[in-house]
């Protein structure tokens, strides 16, 4: 079905980012309202689209009255719109934190304009049905990441942002290579048409495309040898930026990964075989992701800085999700989705609460967590709850995710099964350092008695955003059946490549 107003999800943020950027007196006073109103609009409008999607199935948005595969098109399916809604919620929270903080007063107008473009770019990345368009908005996405990482203007943040700049530019060069190659051999850039013809192209071309497309987003996915930027970036970035990086940036790249893997390559039934070069892509990816999991967990274990610990644990989780996706089965996919849900919700919360607990301390290391339960009771409880949710306590989404992960790899007893040991290692380490942090909250701090003047200020923006997230978490805890239907529907959609191609090339008419 045609539903061309979906494009407003992208255009309205762009328009208001231009508006916000204007240095006119009237706008200067009211840019905060425009900023928040735009995000709210996007959230509400995506809900509206979601209801339409539920009614009619996949929606095709046509741009410039040219139908796919000729023109650019947006595809809003169940999977993508749900992703968008979740990301909008995270974005809204970090935007609230950003807008009510006064320490970026000089540049606040410019930064809010950047954030709106960020919003537009990830909406576009998720909705688009065209490879080159994805590339363009991916560029915007990474540039805005660079900007928001460097906001603190300190040694760490500048170093991190330069690292990110260099790595992401290599990555996008690879992506451009791959796109050029695809265009050269297939003559089209439409995802559906590429997917239709991908089987037919030769073995080495397939390998080339897979390697280059994957290589371009590996650095965004924080997979080990490509994630050298996260250490400095997370440690040097502002708090709301940490939330954006961990809650949105990774997840968007995961979305790209899933789309490419399942929609273009049709990974579950991919055949990579040439007369002398059989490629066991599953083994390749599994070794690769296992290495990444182990290294990230080890770094998180041995780091002292709180933000680094959280950053590397999130990187390890992303690798675990990729590990689950690599199995290429429905259960692996649903495990990945469950883990993504838990990451999206609880990771921002961890960053938010740990920032508040360590506020006012000189060094943000493990010792600054001491006596948190008495200093900042609300945020300590928030931290504990979200850590429990993140590590996969029974009956939380992460628990079900890990259950499904074990089930996926246990289901066929072959040599892939023994990769379970990596997961066991990872979970053990993760549990250990999260509980170490929780344990620190209860330890009395000897140095604290000297300065009792630390006021227990509860900033309202933090309070509200924390409360929102925690209520979502608890809803998930009490009604776990919510995500069952969602996941079945998502996996139906993702594992049905043919329907995706049909709806787009047949212009949405069934």
């Amino acid at each position, binding site marked *: 079905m045609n539903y061309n*107003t979906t494009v407003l999800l992208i255009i309205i943020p762009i*328009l208001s980012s231009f508006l916000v950027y204007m240095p006119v007196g009237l706008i200067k006073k009211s840019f905060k309202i425009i900023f928040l109103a735009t995000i709210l609009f996007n959230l509400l409008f995506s809900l509206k689209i979601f209801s339409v999607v539920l009614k009619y199935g996949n929606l095709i948005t046509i*741009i410039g009255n040219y139908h796919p595969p000729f023109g650019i098109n947006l595809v809003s399916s169940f999977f993508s719109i749900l992703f968008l809604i979740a990301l909008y919620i995270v974005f809204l929270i970090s935007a609230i934190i950003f807008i009510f903080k006064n320490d970026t007063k000089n540049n606040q107008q410019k930064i809010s304009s950047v954030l709106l473009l960020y919003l537009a770019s990830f909406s576009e990345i998720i909705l688009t049905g065209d490879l080159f368009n994805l590339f363009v908005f991916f560029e*915007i996405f990474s540039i805005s990441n660079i*900007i928001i990482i460097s906001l603190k203007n300190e040694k760490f943040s500048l170093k991190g942002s330069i690292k990110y700049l260099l790595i992401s530019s290599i990555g996008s060069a690879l992506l451009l290579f791959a796109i050029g190659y695809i265009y050269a051999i297939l003559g089209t850039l439409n995802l559906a048409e590429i997917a239709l013809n991908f089987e037919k192209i030769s073995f080495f071309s397939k390998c080339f495309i897979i390697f280059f497309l994957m290589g371009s987003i590996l650095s965004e996915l924080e997979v080990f040898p490509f994630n050298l930027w996260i250490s400095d970036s997370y440690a040097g970035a502002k708090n709301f930026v940490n939330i954006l990086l961990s809650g949105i940036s990774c997840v968007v790249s995961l979305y790209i990964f899933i789309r490419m893997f399942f929609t273009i390559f049709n990974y579950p039934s991919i055949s990579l075989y040439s007369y002398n070069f059989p490629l066991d892509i599953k083994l390749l990816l599994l070794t690769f992701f296992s290495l990444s999991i182990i290294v990230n967990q080890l770094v998180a274990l041995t780091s002292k800085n709180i933000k680094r610990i959280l950053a590397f644990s999130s990187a390890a989780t992303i690798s675990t999700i990729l590990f689950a996706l690599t199995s290429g089965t429905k259960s692996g996919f649903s495990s990945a989705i469950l883990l993504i849900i838990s990451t999206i919700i609880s990771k921002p919360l961890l960053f938010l609460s740990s920032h508040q607990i360590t506020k006012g301390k000189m060094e943000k290391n493990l010792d600054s967590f001491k006596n948190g339960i008495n200093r900042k009771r609300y945020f300590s409880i928030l931290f504990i709850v979200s850590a429990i949710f993140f590590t996969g306590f029974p009956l939380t989404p992460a628990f079900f995710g890990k259950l499904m992960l074990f089930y996926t790899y246990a289901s066929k007893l072959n040599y892939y099964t023994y990769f379970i040991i990596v997961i066991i290692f990872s979970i053990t380490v993760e549990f250990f350092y999260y509980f170490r942090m929780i344990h620190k909250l209860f330890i009395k701090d000897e140095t604290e008695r000297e300065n009792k003047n630390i006021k227990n200020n509860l900033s309202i923006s933090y309070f509200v955003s924390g409360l929102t997230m925690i209520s979502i978490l608890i809803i998930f805890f009490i009604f776990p059946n919510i995500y069952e239907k969602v996941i079945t529907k998502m996996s139906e959609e993702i594992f049905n490549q043919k329907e995706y191609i049909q709806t787009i090339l*047949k212009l949405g008419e069934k």
Partner: protein
Amino acid sequence: MKETDFNVGKFFAFLFLFIIFIFMLFPLFEQGNGLKIEKEIKDLRNRVSFAYSTKSVTDITKTLKESGDYSKYREIYNQERNDIRFKESANLENGSANIVTSIVLDYRGFDTLGELIVLFISIIGLTIILSNLNFVPFNPPTFLQKTGVLFLTPFIMLTSIYISLHGHLTPGGGFPAGSIIATLSLFLMIGYKFSYKLKFLNFIESTSGFLVFFLALLGLFITGSFLGNYLPTGIVGKLFSSYLILILYSLVSIKVGAELSVAIKTLYDGENNDR
């Protein structure tokens, strides 16, 4: 950093390039069904872009819809199309005589608008990161600089206006025109120490950017699709034809010029030194 490290870096860079090069060579020497497709695709008519060059996307879509079999679309591409005659054909999909422009701003216009944002956001990033730059005085302009700028200015101005207005007829368009405008402002800065207010430039770039997207958005309400063409396209090859492209391209050139001037000015003066 020591010199040895630098050599190691160069070695890695060359290795990287070499492996990618080898990797790219593999598919070329391969036997298999990959080449078959390539042969098929080599014929321009099998490609999507064939429809762009004949300005017949709407027709093809209509045929595709009637046939209902999406797997045979390549055959449908191959059908005969009407010729387009210079200064004769009228009311086509878009009236741009320059095929590249028609692709860039019409068929794949959304990508170009994205590129606009890429430029916009990188300039914002530049100004945010470099917001604390100090003013570093230049030497006063010499006679040669002054005269050179005096001579060049009218030509550059003319070129930029020409390129931006003839984007739909001849090669060029908004981006080159904008960068030429920026060059102009650079020359003025060097030759005459002439400088705009930064706020003024910001206002221009955001307003023109807003207008570009707003005009594109009007298409959604008038023709039912974003970037849809709601202005008459006119006769191919005339100056006043394909009005939407004309307007958008001139706005783009203004926007790009202002943005690049902001970049130059920030690096030249520093942000906080509005004089």
